[in-house]
C-alpha cells in the first residue's frame, strides 16, 4: 500500500486524540496518587528571598511568644517552617497533632528547625484559646488580622506552609511551599531532604 498525504491527514485526528488520551490517563493517575492537583497554584516565591511584609504583632495575652517581622528572617541560625493557620479553619485542626509531634521531636533533637506561625484573619481571643487547647508548638507567632501580610506571602487560604532556609545576605530564602495541611509523609518526602542538605 502506498502511503500518501491522504493517509497522513486521515491519521492526524487519531494521533491527536491519542495524545490527549495519554495526557488524560496520566492526569487521572496523578489525581489518584495525589501528585496532580488541578487546583494547585504555583507560588512564585519558591527559590526567592522572604518577601517584604508588614510587621505582625504578637498575641496580646502571650508575652512569651514574640511576634513576626521581616527582620526576624535576617538573622536566621536554622531553617524555619512557617505555618499559616487560623482557629476557624477545619483542616488546621486536623494538621495540629502532626505539628505538635514535630515540635516535641524537635525539642528532643536540639532543634534543627524552628516552627513559626502566622495567624490569618483571626480574633486574638479565639486564637489564644485554640493554641491553649492544641498545645502551642510555635516559637514565634504573628497576628495578621487584616490578612495583609498573608497577601505579601501569596497565601490563598489556610493552612499553608513555607520552608525557609537561612541566607545571611538576603535574609532567608523560601525553598518549599505547600497549600493544604502537612502530614508526616509530606515532611519526610519534602522537608527532611532540605534539612539534611540533600534536596
Amino acid at each position, binding site marked *: 500500500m502506498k502511503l500518501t498525504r491522504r493517509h497522513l491527514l486521515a491519521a492526524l485526528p487519531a494521533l491527536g486524540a491519542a495524545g490527549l488520551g495519554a495526557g488524560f490517563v496520566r492526569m487521572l493517575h496523578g*489525581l489518584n496518587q495525589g501528585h496532580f492537583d488541578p*487546583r494547585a*497554584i*504555583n507560588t512564585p516565591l519558591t527559590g526567592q528571598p522572604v518577601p517584604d511584609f508588614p510587621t505582625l504583632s504578637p498575641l496580646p495575652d502571650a508575652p512569651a511568644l514574640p511576634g513576626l517581622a521581616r527582620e526576624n528572617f535576617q538573622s536566621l541560625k536554622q531553617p524555619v517552617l512557617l505555618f499559616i493557620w487560623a482557629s476557624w479553619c*477545619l483542616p488546621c485542626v486536623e494538621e495540629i497533632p502532626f505539628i505538635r509531634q514535630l515540635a516535641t521531636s524537635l525539642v528532643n533533637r536540639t532543634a534543627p528547625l524552628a516552627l513559626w506561625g502566622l495567624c490569618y*484573619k483571626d480574633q486574638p481571643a479565639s486564637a489564644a484559646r485554640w493554641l491553649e487547647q492544641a498545645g502551642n508548638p510555635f516559637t514565634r507567632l504573628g497576628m495578621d488580622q487584616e490578612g495583609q501580610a498573608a*497577601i505579601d506571602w*501569596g497565601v*490563598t*487560604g489556610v493552612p499553608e506552609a513555607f520552608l525557609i532556609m537561612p541566607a545571611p545576605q538576603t535574609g532567608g530564602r523560601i525553598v518549599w511551599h505547600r497549600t493544604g495541611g502537612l502530614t508526616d509523609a509530606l515532611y519526610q518526602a519534602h522537608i527532611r531532604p532540605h534539612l539534611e542538605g540533600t534536596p
Partner: protein
Amino acid sequence: MRRLLLAFFLLLFTIPASLAVDTPDEMLPDPALEQKAQQIGQQLRCLVCQNESIEESSAPLARDLRHIVRQQLQQGHSPKDIEAWMVQRYGEFIRLRPAFYAVTALLWLMPVLSLMVALGLARRLWRRSAPSPAPLTPEERRTLDSLLKKD
C-alpha cells in the same frame, strides 16, 4: 485528596457567597477611576474560586485584592504595575488572560495556526478541478429523480 475535599467544601460555600452583592463602600468615589479598577479586576483571577475574576467574586480574599487594586490606583499606580504586583505574589495563575511567553505561545498562536492549516487544506479543494463528476448509477438516478419530483 484532602485538599481536593477541602476545595470541594469551599466550593459549596463560595457559590452562595459569590452571588453576594457587596457594599458600595468599597467603590471609589471617582466613577472613571472605579471603572478602571473594575477593568483591572476583571483580568485577575479570584484565587479561591473557579474561573471567576476578583470583581465577580465575594470571597474574602477577592475582596481584599479588590481593595488593594483600588488603593494602588488611588496612589497613582498604573494598571500594569498593579498586575505586576499581583503576579509577583501569586504568579501567572492570577492572570485570567495569560501573558505571551514560551509556555503560552501555543495557546496564543492557536487561532492563527489552525486558521492557516485549514485554509491550506481548503486551497487544495479550490484548485482541484476536473471535467465532470462520476455518472450516477441507474438506480441512484431513479431515486434522485423521485426525490427531486417530491421536493
